């Protein structure tokens, strides 16, 4: 079947079933959430391997990383990867739960180079540590900023306001 950009040759349920079956070891809780988005959970230690396989998949290759978000769930942290497949014209949202005391996950910059700045932003704002990242430093805030402001328990500090 030839590729038609903007069309989905498979139904969403078929894509979800294909993913749930092919990545049964890594993806859990696979479901169709939006007309074009499949949501699934991934264990943090399996993420890097899954990302490479997901990108290389012949039928539903998720080649394009749209964004990475860090989320503060109060009792834990979550990292959300939003990836697009040109083959099926669908998105997949990978949700990774991280313990609050140690929010660390492997980098996916080796799979999707676009992850570089997104992971830096998640580190900057929420304080997620991406192990193996080539250059994990702040991207939006100044280098000597103290804390991670999008955490729910962030308290505004006087030293972050030298021009107050």
């Amino acid at each position, binding site marked *: 079947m030839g590729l038609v950009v903007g069309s989905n040759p498979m139904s969403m349920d078929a894509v979800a079933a294909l993913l749930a079956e092919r990545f049964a070891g890594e993806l859990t809780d696979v479901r169709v959430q939006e007309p074009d988005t499949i949501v699934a959970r991934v264990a943090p230690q399996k993420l890097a391997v899954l990302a490479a396989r997901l990108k290389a998949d012949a039928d539903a290759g998720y080649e394009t990383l749209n964004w990475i978000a860090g989320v503060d769930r109060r009792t834990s942290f979550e990292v959300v990867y939003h990836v697009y497949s040109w083959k099926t014209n669908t998105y997949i949202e990978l949700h990774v739960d991280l313990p609050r005391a140690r929010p660390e996950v492997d980098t996916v910059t080796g799979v999707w180079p676009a992850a570089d700045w997104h992971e830096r932003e998640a580190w900057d704002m929420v304080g997620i540590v991406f192990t193996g990242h080539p250059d994990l430093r702040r991207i*939006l*805030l*100044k280098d000597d*900023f103290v804390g991670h*402001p999008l955490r729910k328990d*962030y308290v*505004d500090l006087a030293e*972050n*306001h*030298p*021009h*107050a």
Partner: protein
Amino acid sequence: MSDRIKTARYPKLEHFAEPNVITTTADFIFSWARSHSVFPFTYGLACCAIEMLTSGFARYDIARYGMEVFRPTPRQCDLMIVAGTVNEKMAPVLKRLYDQMSEPKWVISMGACATSGGPFYDGYNVVNGVDKVVPVDVYIPGCPPRPEALFQGLLELQGKIQQYKFVPGKPAAPEAAELVAPAAATEEV
């Protein structure tokens, strides 16, 4: 339009002694030239920059005031139009660029963010007004201000420039003292 602007823009041209000869003061001729050849420094930081750029295009045409030569380098500018939110990471850069501008120089704080932080007041990375960093001559309210508001700010600035005294020994006009930037802002420079 305030009386101050009117009197500043249309000062005394004493009399015509002969055709094409005008008698006036040195103060007037210098300040007239200076206030009508202001080179603004492009300092767009947020959506106010869109209004500032719109001011430059044909519909509003900032060139009517002799200010159309926006320059992207501080070394060729004498007016910094701070158009947008100044954050803590930008503040040292802004101060440095201001310092690189040659005297005499002026600053316009365009919009709520540059004036006070605006809707982002007290944010984790927001400077609550650019006057914490550099002295401001004219504040323009609005979110964002329309080009007409920017023009009124520019006219206020022209009125201020025209009250500068170039000939030493003359006492400053009473209006000039009231127009000086607030003391608190000046001290931090």
